[in-house]
């Protein structure tokens, strides 16, 4: 109907009417989206102006906007003390290792699982491997403590049984990157391997059979058929994950390391744990916000870049 009206003087009115008409026509759908919109406005968008605290000498009597503005002084301290660099390094390195090793292990497990022919075994194994994903971070911390602590941990119990010296894990900052990686892999591999496993199941069995007939041994089959078929999925997942590289797994780190073991902080402090501690233990709203803001902005930039790269691969997969 709009197309037939070509009267120029009415074009402006038409455009406006069209917008209002759009609203009117889809008002039910808009209403259906309203609860979600309100939710995000209240819980995500409203606190955002609070990021301004990062630039102030925060005084909670004056509130956010009346506190003295001090520009980048908060950031200056964080940079000069090396804190910002340390946190960034830790967060990114950990995430990078989690992503690379994580995906590698997930693919590895998926491939092996595919080679397991006994259905019952496969099902039971999968169920067991899934288990760590479902428990809370609190429990993971507790289980780790049960195994690692010096006085009565399982690991040291085994070591003592073999007449070795107990390893004082909670006093060894350099052991912790390994521990965090192992625990993360423990928790996420079973669950994460599912996608890859599903992919492998989706490979046309006739291709596999043809390869077998042609004389390809199992290693070659894996190398030349299975792995390439997983490549697109892996790359996409990898790039998505990199997009979130500035966001750490707070629950895991906080519960495993604890909030007072400052010995371990140089190697285990990630942005989230620092933000939390600075707020809750030192009531330092300004510094906490400054680091949080830094994380958001840096992360935002990384996502944009990664999304651009993903789109180069396949326009379809871009997030926007």
């Amino acid at each position: 109907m709009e197309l037939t009206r070509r009267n120029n003087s009415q074009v402006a009115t038409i455009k406006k009417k069209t917008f209002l008409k759009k609203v009117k026509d889809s008002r039910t759908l808009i209403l259906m989206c309203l609860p979600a919109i309100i939710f995000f406005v209240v819980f995500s968008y409203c606190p955002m102006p609070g990021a301004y605290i990062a630039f102030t000498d925060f005084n909670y009597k004056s509130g956010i906007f009346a506190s003295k503005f001090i520009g980048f002084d908060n950031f200056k301290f964080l940079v000069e003390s090396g804190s910002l660099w340390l946190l960034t390094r830790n967060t990114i390195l950990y995430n990078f290792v989690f992503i690379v090793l994580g995906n590698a292990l997930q693919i590895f497990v998926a491939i092996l699982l595919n080679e397991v022919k006994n259905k019952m075994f496969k099902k039971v194994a999968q169920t067991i491997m899934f288990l760590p994903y479902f428990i809370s971070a609190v429990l993971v911390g507790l289980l780790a403590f049960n195994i690692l602590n010096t006085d009565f941990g399982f690991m040291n119990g085994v070591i003592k049984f073999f007449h070795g010296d107990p390893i004082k894990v909670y006093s060894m900052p350099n052991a912790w990157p390994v521990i965090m990686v192992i625990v993360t892999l423990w928790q996420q591999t079973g669950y994460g391997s599912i996608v890859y496993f599903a992919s492998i199941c989706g490979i046309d069995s006739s291709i596999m059979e043809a390869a077998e007939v042609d004389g390809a041994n199992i290693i070659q089959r894996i190398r030349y058929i299975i792995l390439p078929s997983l490549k697109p999925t892996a790359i996409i997942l990898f790039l998505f994950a990199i997009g979130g590289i500035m966001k750490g797994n707070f629950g895991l780190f906080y519960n495993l390391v604890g909030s007072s073991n400052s010995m371990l902080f140089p190697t285990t402090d990630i942005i989230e744990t620092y933000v939390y501690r600075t707020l809750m233990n030192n009531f330092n709203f300004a510094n906490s916000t400054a680091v949080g803001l830094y994380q958001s902005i840096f992360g935002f930039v990384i996502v944009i870049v990664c999304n651009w790269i993903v789109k180069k691969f396949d326009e379809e997969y871009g997030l926007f």
Partner: protein
Amino acid sequence: MSKIGRKILATLLVGAMALSLAGCGGGSSKTSGKATTTVKADGTVDTSQHVKVKFVVLGNKPTNGRLEDVLKQVNEKLTKKVNAELEIQYVEWADWQTQYNLLLASGDSTIDLITTATDWLDAWPNIKKGSFLPLSEDMLKTYAPQTWSSVSPEHWNQTKYKDQIYLIPEDNYAQYTNHGMFYRGDWAKEAGLDQINNFTDLGKYFQYIVDKKPGVIPWDISGTAAFGNQFAGGYMQSNTKNIAIDGIPIGLSSLFYGKSKDEPYTLTSPYMEGNTLEEFATMMKSWSDAKYWREDVLNYNGETRDLMYAGQSGADQHHSETYFGTTRPLMDQKQPGSELKMFPFSEPSKNLTKVVITHGALAIGANSKNPERALMVYDLLRNDKEIYMLYNYGIEGKDYTITKDNKLGRPEGWDQTKDALETNFWCGRNDNLGLIDSKAYAGRADMVKNYNTYAIEYPYGQFIFDNSKSATKISAMADVCAKYIPKIAFGKVSDPKAEVAAFKKEMMAAGYQDVFNDIQEQLKASKK
């Protein structure tokens, strides 16, 4: 283009919405409701409206039911006298520093009476942050007349900030809250030590336990930042003549001290100057290696006092009053013959200040809806004999008895760890009305006499540090303290000297010198 344009528009719209919401939206509900308590034309107070008064108190909420029974009776009397009811909100010991400050920061309008202190509950910073209501002379005279007249003008002066009164001091209660270590006299004697009065001997005591008492941890402490700072502070007190200045918290640490009782206006910090911190760090490292506490002390969270009662810890750390009234009597009960003794941190250096009158103080919440009625309730709690006895000791016969010589006794089978009332009224105790505990350690008088031979008045009672220039630097310094002090205090470092050097370096980078100069200037100016 328009697609992106619309997206940007949407985001901007939302941003504007959010800003307007944040800007004009509510804020903390600053009360401007009508007062619930006013003075009538004839001069008496109008208490026709029944009011609930909430009292913030430190401690673990008791679960034995005594509190509820006692409060019922207290509230009956309060209702009769001022038509009000008391409700207690506990800030529990776990994480208390965080929880207490966060509670005050939130500007909660339901809290009326607040237990606070200038030396351990950061009263001055909270006053400056606007967490407490200024109390005018009129208010105090009208609604808390008995308290008003019982506190002297000099004492009222010590609670003023910018000429306004903010705190009601617990100034009629003799107490000694100087910290130290509790240790078992029986084991010390076996170790060849009579009275431990310095850290070296303490180390010998711990070593004895390691050698001869298997299954017992010399000091089974939980390595939290709070304990670490307290312990470090104790070492400083024992090994220097410096006097800690309250009211300038650097996170959980107290770094700034006056040089000595002869030079109180010269600022110093035993943490940053001289070798004291290094010596401390080295000693603690050797203690940690010698296993005087658990290997994983920084991740451990047992209750040292309970473990001591059970004979599994050889020591505990707290102050004299706790020793007199709690740990010594209880140890006599639970570990007969243990003869618990105390090594006060003040002994080796004879470095002790008397308790400030604001070690316990009452404040009114800045957003309280019933400040006048709250004051009336407090006045009664502090000065009304019946209510005071009920509130502090409980129901006569059930919670306490009065002995023949008019002291406080307990009924048969009463166990402090299980049956205590725990109203924790640490901001209004009154020696005029209170009873001396018959079970308290009999040697209290002697120990007090000893303290009085060298204790001095706290010199900084009226020094209030204005941190407006230094707040950011102080936050940065707090970060550094949080990073280093706990692990230094518990010896969890590989090279103590290097750690201390790193600590000092980072402190300087955080702006220590500027803050130091600021404080020194203000300190000199406060000299009277």
